[in-house]
């Protein structure tokens, strides 16, 4: 109680409660249960999406996050792909763009790829994903 209070006072952040933990764990596990996507399919989709996005922007592979979430019985694919820099010539190899535009690097906010309304994806091919930034 007192340590919680001190933590809040000095660090300015709320410690996460076990209630928050269980809610976030449940949301993720239910999204996967509901979508019923086999792990290899999920991995293949992840690879393909990364490939497409990497053609246009350079992604920070450390911070990327790829998961299913569900809300009100609708499942969504949430991809958080932190962008390191934008490639100004799409499809060109990354080394070339770095050489031509050395000073034009920009750090963008994390991109969210969201495809709502895909409830029953069990038997269907991977959903279409809007990659607009």
């Amino acid at each position, binding site marked *: 109680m007192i340590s919680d209070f001190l933590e809040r006072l000095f660090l300015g952040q709320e410690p996460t409660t*076990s209630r928050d933990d269980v809610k976030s764990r449940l949301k993720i596990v239910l999204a996967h249960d509901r979508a019923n996507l086999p792990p290899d399919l999920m991995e293949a989709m992840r690879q393909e999406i990364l490939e497409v996005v990497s053609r246009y922007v350079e992604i920070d592979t450390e911070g990327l996050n790829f998961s299913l979430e569900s809300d009100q019985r609708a499942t969504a694919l949430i991809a958080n792909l932190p962008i390191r820099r934008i490639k100004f010539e799409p499809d060109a190899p990354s080394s070339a763009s770095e050489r031509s535009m050395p000073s034009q690097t920009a750090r963008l906010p994390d991109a969210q790829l969201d495809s709502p309304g895909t409830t029953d994806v069990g038997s269907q091919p991977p959903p279409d994903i809007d990659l607009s930034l």
Partner: protein
Amino acid sequence: MGRIIVITSGKGGVGKTTCSANLGMALAKLNHSVALIDADFGLRNLDLLLGLENRVVYTALEVLAGQCRLEQALVKDKRLHDLVLLPAAQNRNKDAVTPEQMKQLAYALTKKYDFVLIDCPAGIEMGFQNAIAAADEALIVTTPEISAVRDADRVVGLLEAHHVKTINLIVNRIRPAMVQANDMMSVQDVQEILAVPLIGMIPDDEQVIVATNRGEPLVLSDNFSLSGMALLNIAQRIEGKDIDFLDLDAPYDTLFSRLKRFFKR
């Protein structure tokens, strides 16, 4: 024609049979005729919770085998005359009956009874398939625990696939003090995650164990209990009445916790 309602949960030990026994009694108390079907073949318990274990003669299996009439197998309750139990066989397993046969039994009972409540076994195998075959409504019982909620979600998906139209949620064994300390999910948390309409919330109550020991469901007891009250309210909501939910937090609410909630908003 009576309504067929299955009481199910996926996970075991969350209070399906307790809810079945109490809701059956509560509906009978509200002057409806009620038939309770124990669909837990091999592990029957509903007779114990109702205190009718000594009066079981025939079971659903003998009816289906043509060894007795349905009427003969029904155990009539002495306390409430409009309540009967169709017991499950204890010496057989879940494969002893088929979904088709369960439908026959349930449909036959709807002709005479306003409510046919089916107590579903845990799991999602044959026993579950049998129990939900005839139902057009379902009550999902869950507790505010990760495993119970996950299993409940799976069951909701299966019920939807079986075209069970009306699905309602009962959140059982809530401990308001733990919810206030943020160490347990609240009823709203569970309801939001499962996205199924809420029909009742029942606090964790030692009286449930006492009632089970005696074979006298809580709703029959003269002593007031919050959980018995919650169960009676659920029965009234099943009837279609608009009853307010109990404020389970009230006994644990201090001025400080109210202020804290106010400032968190």
